[in-house]
Each structure stands twice: as structure tokens, then as C-alpha cells.
């Protein structure tokens, strides 16, 4: 026993000596990923390949690999090939966080592409910001964030419903019911939708949120039946969305008299629910597989024929992800030109990404560009109606690109600038999440 105590004391002593050693108190070295001559450009692909989030995120990984293959085939970035480092985040936010660190600190990638949900983005952002790194977030989100370390190529909440709500009000009537999954993005999207609804003279009859992953829509549909809206505005996501559309029809609702206008129900979902459950409903997105332009035809054909195209479809989330690769390419090239290849850091890529345009010839959804202040994307939201075969017919397209505004419904919070959130008091705060 005595012997043991002595041992313990020794260990503790060793520990305290180590703590007292001054160099150990220093924060560890700031991250400095740079490009090295003759080595490929490493980027991290942080998506879930297993677990509940794998449904959309596996496609994201595939389309990015396709994009980088395409870029490499055409000479790479600045003549250097891109090498994606693929990890599996296992649909587990703890793993997202761990893998982010691994990609940044160990793999020393120059940029990260990743996440599909806000929750996972929030899980990794502290790490990304702390290492002053760069995340391409390639899907729609709610906004109300102003960091100096993200570039988003999907629509913000303010872009998403700007056309959709007036369109639906005009076509089907003023009364609407909001249904969403119970988390941040649907709630924020609905706040935006309310703004447009008010402008369009519509009337909100009810607002319901159901738990993420739940497949029981009985109570919600009961409330909708009582409220008798002209259309439903849905921000239900994932498996729940499919259950929602199925039960909508099973409960005897008719798509002609009360369609669902959704921000999420794309080609993947309509195929999984069976086209007869999806047909007739509406979706607002910047991209549909059926978009009729040569770039899109090339993208769809090329992708489906490639070894990555096994899922047999392209949808808005994949296209937004595809674009992020080209935004990265342009940003890196601009940064290299500005500071020299040796000195390119994630931060310098980001700082040089403002105003980058992806032209019609590259972008399947048509010209987009990155906002110079908040680093979200100017894009044209389009409205599609699901057809009997599960594809979408574009019924309305914005005539010009809509500006992304992360703080559109929080004018008091200030405006997002390149260096941070500029409050009404004129103070600029960095990394507001």
C-alpha cells in the first residue's frame, strides 16, 4: 500500500513538473497549411458515408470526386491536380468534429468541403474558425451566421422562398399552413417565408414542427384538415419528408386542391416515395435535373456515365456541391495570383473568393457569383413541379440572380461584411455563429 502511494505521488509530481514547464503553457502552433511544389493540392471531403445522413451526403462525396476528376483532367488548379481526402463522418457529430481536426491538423488540407446539416456545420465551425481554416458548405442553410471561414454555394433562407410564396399565393390562394422539422433551419426559413407571405397578402393558418426523423404525421395532418389551407409550405427534411408526402396522400388530401410547396423535396425524395406520392407538388431550388441547357446536359450525362453516377440522378444539393469545387478552383487561382502560390493559405483563398463568378459554361444552374461581403452565393431560385415520372418541370425561374442576405430578417443585428458582422453601433464582430 505504501509503495503504491509513493508511486502515485511520483506520477502526480511528474505531471505537475510538466505543467510547470513554461513551453507547455504556450498555445500550440497556429495552423499554416500551404501548398508545396510538386505535390497535389489536398482538400478534405467531410461527409457521412454511413448512418442516417448518408443518403444525401454520400452523393455529395461522389459529385465532388467527379468534379475534381473533371478539374484534374482539364489541367488541375494552376496546373496542379487536386487530391480529395475522403473521410466518413458516420452521421455522428462527434465524429464530424474529430475528423475536421484530423483533416486540418494531420492531413493539412487547404480547404474543407462538408456537411449537409446545420447541426454538423455548427459542430465543426469552432474548430474551423479557431484554426482560421476554410469550409465550403455546399447546401442551403438558414443564414444568421457571419464567419470569416465559410463559403456557401447553396441558397439562403431569404433566397429560397422569395419567389415560391408569391407564386403559390397567386396560383392557389392566400391561406397557407407551415410544416417543418423541429430544428433551426425550418424555423428560420419559415420566418423568411412569413415576410414574403405578408408582402403577397397571404394568411398563415398554422405552423407545426415535428421531431426530426419522426414518421408520424397523423396529428399534423389532422390540424391541416381542420385549418383547410390553400397550400402547405413544407420544410420537413429527410426520411420524415418522404413519410409526410406519403401520408398526405394516404389521408386523402388532394394535390390539386392543396399542394405542398417544399424547399427540400427533390429528385431523390420523389424517387424514394414513389412518383405518385410526389407528383404535382412544388419545389423551390436553384437547380433541377431537367434544366434545359447544354452545360446541364453535359453535367447530367457526364456524371451519370461516370463511375460516381451509380445513384442514377442529379439534384440540387449535388449541383450546389459540384459548384463549390469550381468556386474553390477559381478562389485558389485568384489567391495564388495575389499572394503567390507558396503563400496561399485557407484564409487567403477565402479573402480572394469574393465576386468569383461561375459562368453559364461551367455552372449547370446558370451563372452564379459569390457575394463580396458575406460569401454566400447570388443565384436564381427556380420553381419546379414534380411530374408523374419523379422529375421536375420548371414552372417559374427568377429573371435575375437574387442577393443572399443572411440577416434579412434580423436587420437589428447588423450586416455581414468581409471582416465580420457590422453591428448598428458600427462595431465589427468576427465569427458570429
Amino acid at each position, binding site marked *: 500500500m505504501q509503495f503504491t502511494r509513493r508511486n502515485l505521488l511520483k506520477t502526480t509530481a511528474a505531471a505537475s513538473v510538466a505543467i510547470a514547464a513554461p513551453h507547455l503553457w504556450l498555445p500550440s502552433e497556429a495552423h499554416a497549411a500551404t501548398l508545396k511544389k510538386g505535390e497535389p493540392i489536398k482538400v478534405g471531403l467531410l461527409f457521412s458515408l*454511413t*448512418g*442516417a445522413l*448518408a*443518403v444525401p451526403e*454520400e452523393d455529395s462525396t461522389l459529385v465532388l470526386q467527379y468534379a475534381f476528376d473533371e478539374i484534374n483532367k482539364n489541367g488541375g488548379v494552376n496546373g496542379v491536380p487536386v487530391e480529395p481526402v475522403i473521410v466518413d463522418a458516420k452521421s455522428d457529430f462527434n465524429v464530424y468534429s474529430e475528423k475536421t481536426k484530423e483533416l486540418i491538423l494531420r492531413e493539412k488540407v487547404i480547404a474543407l468541403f462538408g456537411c449537409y446539416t446545420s447541426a454538423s456545420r455548427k459542430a465543426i465551425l469552432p474548430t474551423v474558425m479557431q484554426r482560421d481554416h476554410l469550409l465550403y458548405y455546399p447546401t442551403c442553410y438558414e443564414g444568421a451566421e457571419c464567419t470569416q471561414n465559410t463559403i456557401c454555394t447553396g441558397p439562403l433562407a431569404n433566397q429560397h422562398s422569395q419567389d415560391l410564396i408569391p407564386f403559390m399565393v397567386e396560383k392557389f390562394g392566400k391561406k397557407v399552413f407551415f410544416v417543418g422539422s*423541429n430544428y433551426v433551419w425550418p424555423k428560420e426559413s419559415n420566418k423568411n417565408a412569413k415576410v414574403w407571405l405578408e408582402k403577397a397578402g397571404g394568411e398563415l393558418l398554422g405552423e*407545426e*414542427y*415535428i*421531431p426530426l*426523423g*419522426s*414518421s*408520424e404525421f*397523423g*396529428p*399534423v395532418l*389532422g*390540424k391541416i*384538415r*381542420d385549418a383547410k389551407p390553400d397550400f402547405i409550405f413544407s420544410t420537413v427534411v429527410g*426520411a420524415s419528408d*418522404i*413519410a409526410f408526402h*406519403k*401520408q398526405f*396522400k*394516404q*389521408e*386523402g388530401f388532394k394535390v390539386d386542391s392543396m399542394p405542398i410547396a417544399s424547399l427540400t423535396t427533390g429528385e*431523390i425524395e420523389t*424517387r*424514394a*416515395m*414513389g412518383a*405518385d*406520392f410526389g407528383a404535382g407538388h412544388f419545389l423551390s431550388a436553384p437547380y433541377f435535373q431537367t434544366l434545359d441547357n447544354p452545360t446541364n446536359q453535359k453535367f447530367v450525362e457526364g456524371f451519370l456515365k461516370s463511375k460516381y453516377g*451509380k*445513384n442514377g440522378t442529379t439534384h440540387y444539393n449535388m449541383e450546389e456541391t459540384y459548384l463549390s469545387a469550381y468556386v474553390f478552383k477559381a478562389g485558389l487561382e485568384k489567391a495564388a495570383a495575389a499572394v503567390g502560390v507558396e503563400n496561399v493559405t485557407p484564409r487567403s483563398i477565402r479573402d480572394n473568393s469574393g465576386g468569383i463568378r461561375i459562368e453559364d459554361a461551367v455552372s449547370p444552374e446558370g451563372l452564379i457569383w459569390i457575394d463580396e461581403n458575406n460569401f454566400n452565393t447570388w443565384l436564381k431560385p427556380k420553381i419546379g413541379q414534380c411530374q408523374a415520372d419523379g422529375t421536375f418541370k420548371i414552372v417559374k425561374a427568377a429573371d435575375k440572380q437574387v442577393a443572399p442576405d443572411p440577416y434579412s430578417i434580423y436587420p437589428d443585428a447588423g450586416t455581414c461584411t468581409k471582416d465580420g458582422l457590422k453591428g448598428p453601433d458600427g462595431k465589427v464582430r468576427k465569427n458570429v455563429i
Partner: protein
Amino acid sequence: MDLGSLLNALILGVSIASIWLIAALGLTIIYGTAGVINMAHGELIMLGAYSSYMLQFYLGLPYLLCIPASFFIVAFVGLVLERGLIRYLYNRPLDTLLATYGVSLVLMQGVRLIFGSDPKYIAAPAAFSSNISLGFASISTFRVVILGVTALLVFGLWLLFYKTRFGVQVRAVMQNKEMAASFGINSGRIYMLTFALGAGLAGVAGSLFGVLAIVLPTMGASYVVQAFLMVVVGGGSLAGSVAASGATGELQSVLAFFTNDTFARFIIFVLIVVFLRFRPQGLFAQAGARR
């Protein structure tokens, strides 16, 4: 708020109850008889959905035939599982929980490897995509189908457990394994058959849920905890599970009517904890051998 809507909520509650119940039925049999805490139950439900999908997609079997076929397919899987693993763990109930959690991972990933992670689609007869309106109330045909299947299964199980020789044997084994053995009842065989039966019931639930919601490798995870709570609140008996699901389904529907779905769930979880505090043995405890 008008009376009609509340009535509708009550009717819906019955439907929700039947969904909770059919998810919990198989577990009730397995837990009630052998005390096995089967964490892979959700994955057995998932297998039921996938077997329906497979039969329909590759063999073109009509949906109504897929339901009983799923029963047998998943029952067979259950049989293999019982013979290969569970039977070694009967005297270690908490270990069955861990081992079957391992099984659930294997099944989930196995299905993903075979079928991919994108959702599958089971086509149901068009007649199921409509609703029945009774003037004041309205309910979807498919929910009535689920309710009907559930009622049928409960009735069948009641017959099986209380009116047949097999049922007598099962109850004998439940009460006292040693005593039953001395009467020549092979408890190993009884356990094997009940486990297969429980798995088969999960298969039926799966083929129904596949139409109601979605077919995904991960679909099972959302059912297992709630099914478990039903079984434990019910006390592991058939009547208990029926009563527990009934009460929970109604509560869920009515609370969701007055508040929202998420909060309704919260209240239900808390009520379950409070209930078990005062009646840890559940609503209708099995007259099993307890010390």
C-alpha cells in the same frame, strides 16, 4: 377548438396506438417469454421492410402477399439469430442487450452494403392511398389496414398463447423453466420458436412501415426505444403492451393536438418514468418466477 377535431384526434390516437403496438408486439413476445432485451428489434423491422421491397421489386409479388412473406423471412432470420447467439445468453439478460446491439449494427450495415443507403420504395395498392370519411371524422385507409392487421395479430397471439398446447408450454416455461422441463417441455425449443415468432412479427411491422414511411437501412433505430418502453410499461404481457400502446397513442395524439409533437413526446417520456416509479413491474406483470 371544436369537438369534431378532438374526436378526430381520439380516432387518430387509436391509429397511432396500433403503430406503436405493432412495433412492440414482437418485442413483447421475446421479452415476455425469455427476458431477452433485443436491441436488434428495430433492425428486424427494417429487414421486414426490405424483404417486402425485394419480393415486390424482384419477384413482382403483390403487396398483400409481401406482408405474410416478410413474416416468414424475418422469422427465419430470427431463428438463425436465436440458434447462433441468443440461446447462449438466456441467463444473462443485460448481455443480450449488448450482443443484440452488435447484431443491429451488423444487420444495418449488411443491408446497406447490399442495397445501398438510398431509400427504397414499396408500392401499395392504389386503394390504400385514400381515406375513409365518416362525416365528422376521417382516417386514411392504410391506417385502417394497419389497425386491422394489428388487431388480427393480437387476436392470433391471444389464441396461440391462451388456447393452444404451445401456449400452455410457453407459459409453463415462463413461470418455471426447471419445472416445465420436468414435464417434458423442451424450453430451448420454446425459446427458439417464440424468438422466431417475435422476429416474424417485426417483419410484418416492417412491411407496413415501409409503406407508411420509408425504407432505409437506418429506419429501425427510431422504433426500438419506443417499442421497448411500451413493453416495459406493459409489464411484458400481451395485454400490457396493448394497454400501454393504447394509452400512449391516445396521449400522443391528444397532446400533439393541444401542444406540438415534440412536446407531446417529452411529456410521454416523463409520464413513463413517473409511472414506472410507482409501478416498476408494469401494467400487467407476467406471473413469472421472481424471487
